[in-house]
């Protein structure tokens, strides 16, 4: 009798957990599921039978690592390891992402019961409770993406203008410099009073002034605060922004992020612009008429001292002799009659600039022959 009662109680609790209208899972130290419920199984089915618990946990850990949104830190005392962490799960097959609000609490197995079975005493478990908030978040996310789109479009326009203007002034500077050296030599030879030298010097000065005026018109760099950045999130933003275009072009995306990336110190909008330029290029490259293979691969991974982002398209690729040239401002494969890999004039040049500002680089992988693989390397600086 004394034994039967707890057993009945246990069955009741298990039944209650099973029927609870939220995802509940009990995890051991290795993130293995010890106990789950119906909702959990449903989610697992939606994920193509992959275990949802480890995915949720990696995202939560990544977020805690970045240290962002540490709002509930003060409530640790109440036994929660984390509380109401919002986690996004990307479903396979390009389905809409889902959001969960996750909380976790430590559960310690009873020592007495454990002693009978395990020599090492009680074990720690984590009770993971995830409540789906997709409906709520989808609205917010829509608004956020729309806002982002507006900001990015603005930023795009300004940076394209800035880049073109400074490239143009730079182009003019060359010939002016040449003239300046000629004038200098003339003046040296024939003396300052030489009529030709004087006329040229005047013309030079006028040109120089025009150039200065032009330079003054270049819009200033938009100042934005630098901060700790989760590169995966930025890339996902950009992918969200380009979803419509990609669907229209029938491009399949395979997004392979490394689950946990170290936080990067940098400018979020600029980096978003960098990724967007590269992904736009990739889309454009594959949108050529009659081009069959349309597959975009976006990958992130940690490399010694930094983060590597790979953006790979199955387009016609860039021939080796142009792989350096495409980085020049104004260079566009379209104008050269090249097939489709049209760059937005200053797209790659700007991308390279942004990467350089972060101490990194953009490279076109020369070993990739079918399609184009662009590697972005961003160093993670450890600031004391």
């Amino acid at each position: 009798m004394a034994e039967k009662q707890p057993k009945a109680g246990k069955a009741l609790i298990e039944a209650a957990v099973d029927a609870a209208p939220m995802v509940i899972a009990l995890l051991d130290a290795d993130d293995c599921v010890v106990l789950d419920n119906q909702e959990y199984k449903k989610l697992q089915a939606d994920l193509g039978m992959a275990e949802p618990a480890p995915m949720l946990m990696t995202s939560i850990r990544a977020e805690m690592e970045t240290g962002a949104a540490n709002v509930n830190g003060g409530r640790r005392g109440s036994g929660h390891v984390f509380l109401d962490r919002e986690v996004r799960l990307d479903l396979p097959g390009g389905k809409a992402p889902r959001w969960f609000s996750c909380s976790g609490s430590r559960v310690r197995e009873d020592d007495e019961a454990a002693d009978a079975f395990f020599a090492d005493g009680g074990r720690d478990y984590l009770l993971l409770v995830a409540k789906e908030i997709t409906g709520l978040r989808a609205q917010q996310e829509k608004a956020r993406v729309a806002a982002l789109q507006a900001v990015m479009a603005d930023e795009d326009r300004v940076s394209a203008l800035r880049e073109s203007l400074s490239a143009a002034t730079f182009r003019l500077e060359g010939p002016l410099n040449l003239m300046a050296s000629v004038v200098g030599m003339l003046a040296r030879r024939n003396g300052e009073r030489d009529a030709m030298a004087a006329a040229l010097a005047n013309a030079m000065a006028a040109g120089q002034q025009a150039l200065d005026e032009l330079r003054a018109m270049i819009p200033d760099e938009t100042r934005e605060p630098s901060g700790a950045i989760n590169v995966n999130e930025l890339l996902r933003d950009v992918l969200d922004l380009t979803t419509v275009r990609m669907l229209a072009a029938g491009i399949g995306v395979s997004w392979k992020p490394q689950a946990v990336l170290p936080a990067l110190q940098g400018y979020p909008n600029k980096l978003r612009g960098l990724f967007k330029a590269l992904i736009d290029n990739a889309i454009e490259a594959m949108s050529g008429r009659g081009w069959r293979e349309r597959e975009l691969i976006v990958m992130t991974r940690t490399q010694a001292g930094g983060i590597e982002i790979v953006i790979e398209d199955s387009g016609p690729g860039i021939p080796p002799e142009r792989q350096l040239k495409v980085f020049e401002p104004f260079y566009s494969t379209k104008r050269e009659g090249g097939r489709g890999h049209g760059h937005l004039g200053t797209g790659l040049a700007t991308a390279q600039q942004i990467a350089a500002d972060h101490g990194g680089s953009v490279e076109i992988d020369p070993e990739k022959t079918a399609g184009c693989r662009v590697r972005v390397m961003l160093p993670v600086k450890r600031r004391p």
Partner: protein
Amino acid sequence: MSDSRLPALLRAQYETLFRVSQVLSRSLDFHKTLREVLRTLEITGHLSGGMVSVVDPAAGDLSVHAVHGLDSEEFEPVRYQPGEGVIGMILEGGRTVAIPRLGDEPRFLNRLGLYDKELPFIAAPIQVGGALQGVLTVQPDAADDGLLEERVRFVEMVANLIGQNVRLSLEVEQERKALSEERDTLRRTVRQKHGFDNMVGHSDAMRRIFEQIRMVAKWPTTVLIRGETGTGKELIANAIHYNSPRTRGPYVRLNCASLPENLLESELFGHEKGAFTGAVNSRKGRFETADGGTLFLDEIGEISPAFQAKLLRVLQEGELERVGGSRTIKVDVRLIAATHRDLEAAVEAGEFREDLYYRLNVMPILPSPLRERMEDLPEIARFLLERLGGIQGRTLSLTAAAQRRLAQHSWPGNVRELENCLERASVMSMDGEIDVDLIRIDQPRTGPARKVSAAVSPAPTLAANAGDAEASETEAGGEQSERQRVIAALEQAGWVQARAARLLGMTPRQIAYRIQTLNIEVRQI
């Protein structure tokens, strides 16, 4: 009956062995070769379902590497623990396993669903130097006819042949991976070392330089860096290369003044075999090595007119010929040249070709001397000390007095002189704090500093100087020179006041008075 079949089998095996050896010797692409071998085994050897699993040195188990008829994407990654199934048995025992009829073997797992249970099955270890490297498994395509023994021997033979190949390819793969990883790491460190982070300063002059570098990095234009020695011409060239899209390409540097004329030519353009005495091999020049990257030519003002003509041609046409060669070589190189010379005067004097001068001077970058951007000096000093401190493993700092002392010098040797000065001072500093007494400025060339150099050497002339010290003190900077003189003499005398007094032609009392009035901190050694 089996007697008539044996010779036929042996002949077929001989033929198969020949083909396998051919395939193995053809290429080093491991996966392709293995698939070819398995194909050959099936077609000529009547051994189907060929599969090679390789020992994973990290995990200690076997992973399936190649399966005949299936691409690597088509089969699920299957692994065998030691002792697991028939294949795992080999991993444990290291001996060939032959089963006359697979269905009779209870340990068989058939993980890949590849094998027919009615047929025999052979699994032979692939060994290299006595160590098990993998397992080759095949299935004869007919029921056992009493010749299983012969077939086993044959499979063992093939496994041995594959062994060397497996080892080689594993080694090559490992090496290549290690190399490319090391290359990437090195490239990153180099880039970090030579990026903008190494250029310090917020003066307008410096900001203009940064802007120029940023712009110029985007185009493959020729750049000419003109500045005094020690203004960081090389740093600018580095920053241009490592911020340009060519950063993954080669970066080749050469100081034109470091080599005599004829050597310089073969160094830059390369030479063919027999071009001159001693040219036993043909050799790539620096221009060719820098193809797809950047070539930095320092001291461009020092090259001879004949050489200038050659250089001009490369700049204009992007092509060159090796010394003693007739083949025209096309190169894609961004040239960065640097000089401290007055090129205009050199053109005037006929030492420098005018056309080359125009060609080079398209994008001049003019780093200003340190004395024209003294506002950057504290920041530069701090940066240099940080770097020196990193090398010495301690924190270094400047006292305010030392800071002032640095600001009073005109730094004809620019940042390099400052760096040398700080390095010397830091080495002499006991606790990492650099005070004014440790700042020693050598070979001053201009202004008040000249008096100092005179001060330390010949004593007789000093006496005269010291005599009118009172008078000179009224001049601007006079006090400084007096102070420097005394400090320099004290340094030279190892801070023995009496000896310093002798050097200056003063009495010990006089020098003591000056130390007091000039507020010189006396170091006790």
